[in-house]
């Protein structure tokens, strides 16, 4: 495991910013962090970076204590803050040079990334828009050859075209064998990019889902025109069946759809609707009243 947390907690007086959060991340995985503002995503990332001292519990990256061995931990990772702020007096090229020299990383790689992100490197940071600054910081972050990349809402200030490029860059980094920890509000992006997703709510880790499993899940809704026959034993484990008082039925399928459809074809159903569940449903299960970007 590259990342391990064990009952990791951070309290500010009475406020629990993060409570007893335990999870592991294997090498090469893209892990998404989902949750509304204040859910504890940034606190979790800052604990992993050693910026904050845990109130209790421990976080380890590559076996190193994130707080006590933060310099060694930082050799293993690159980090992009949600609102990246760079030295305002430097231009784009000088910024890339500075961080490349600090890391002893390849400036050529930085320049290639900048070119791909269509950055004007002659412009000073103070003259750049928020989106341009974020792209420049992304180039800084993706340059070093490190096993772990932590991205805190990397696409928050970017236009849709660049968002797509960023998701592509994240996938490429994974293909190079890097592990990515990626926090975002944008569900579609997380679903596109991540292998696994942690859902946080009020500082607690409330769900862990594999995106491939979520993609296989479907919700089937229909009106009953008669009584349902018993569910075949082969399907019992993979479906969840709910009947409501007005003659409707909802089936949540967690596996292959074909055997279920075979059974449903023989049931007294009308107005059948089948839809993929997606991350939105998972998210709304925990955060029902929140409106989120798609």
């Amino acid at each position: 495991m590259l990342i391990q947390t064990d009952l990791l907690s951070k309290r500010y007086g009475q406020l629990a910013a993060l409570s007893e959060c335990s999870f592991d991340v294997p090498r090469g995985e893209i892990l998404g962090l989902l949750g509304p503002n204040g859910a504890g995503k940034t606190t979790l990332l800052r604990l992993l970076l050693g910026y904050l001292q845990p109130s209790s519990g421990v976080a380890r990256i590559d076996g190193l204590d994130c707080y006590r061995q933060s310099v060694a931990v930082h050799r293993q990772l690159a980090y992009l803050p949600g609102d990246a702020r760079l030295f305002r007096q430097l231009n784009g090229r000088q910024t890339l040079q500075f961080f490349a020299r600090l890391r002893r990383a390849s400036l050529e790689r930085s320049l290639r990334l900048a070119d791909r992100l269509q950055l004007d490197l002659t412009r000073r940071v103070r003259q750049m828009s928020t989106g341009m600054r974020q792209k420049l910081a992304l180039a800084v972050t993706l340059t070093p050859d490190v096993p772990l990349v932590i991205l805190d809402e990397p696409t928050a200030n970017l236009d849709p075209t660049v968002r797509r490029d960023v998701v592509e860059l994240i996938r490429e980094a994974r293909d190079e064998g890097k592990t990515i920890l990626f926090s975002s509000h944008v569900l579609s992006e997380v679903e596109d990019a991540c292998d696994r997703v942690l859902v946080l709510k009020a500082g607690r880790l409330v769900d862990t889902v594999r995106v491939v499993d979520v993609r296989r899940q479907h919700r089937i809704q229909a009106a009953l025109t008669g009584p349902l026959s018993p569910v075949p034993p082969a399907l019992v484990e993979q479906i969840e069946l709910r009947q409501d008082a007005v003659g409707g039925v909802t089936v949540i399928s967690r596996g292959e759809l074909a055997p279920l459809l075979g059974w449903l074809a023989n049931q007294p159903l009308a107005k059948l609707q089948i839809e993929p569940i997606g991350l939105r449903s998972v998210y709304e299960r925990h955060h029902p009243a929140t409106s989120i970007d798609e």
Partner: protein
Amino acid sequence: MNLVLLGRSLRDSWLLLVSCSVMALGFTWLRVWVASHIKVDAFVKFFSEGLQIFQGLLPVPIEDLASPLGRVAFSFEELGLLMLLGLWTVTRATDCLAGRIGAGTMEMLLAQPVRRLTLVSTHTAVTLAGVLAIGAASWLGVKLGLQFSKFEDAPPWIKLAPAAINFVCLGVFITGAATLISALVRTRAQAVGMVIGFYVVELMLMIIGRLNDRFQWMNRLTILSVYEPTLLTIGLNRDPSAVWPLFWQYNATLLGLGLAGLAASAAIFCRRDVPAPL
């Protein structure tokens, strides 16, 4: 020490440092030259007879202050020169931690494999080098001022060394105090506000302590009581054996407290949580 950070810190601050040094040189040069052209008899009479109450505010008796050495040494107590030193030290020291945290650049820096202590020490090394440069420029300004002065018995510039050393030690103290405040707060504005507040309180303690014998104890509470460039300069030239202990005591106090402030700020920063920028 990290050479990349050191280079960055130098490039960030060279314009301010050159400006402060040139202005310090020009200020003391002009100040000494002007002082040599003014007839001070009227001032001495004015203070001796009319405004005796304010004599307590002077660092040395008015007769000593009116001497060429006293007039030149007093350059190091002029508000203009102290403001230049304050501008450099407070600007740099408050930027060291609170400034970078507030501006958000600390986020990116701390994500690099660099120790927090290295971040503080590199920045502080440049600040202290700047204090030395401004001190040297001020002293050089005094030398140039003396060369072009109209003093009949101009003191040799080397005699102003105690004043310049006391000035540099004050710079070290301000750097330490401001960096310590910077390590405790979240934004640079808070740090600057607290430094100014601290200075105002110190100044009030000094003025009240000097104006009234009943409140002389207040003088001991202010760090400004060990910044006495004129007193040390005149004293060391007149009675070295009596004033040398005072010279060491004053400068050691300023240096010691300044370095303690720097050590404490590094210790605090190495342990504190780094909040997200506002």
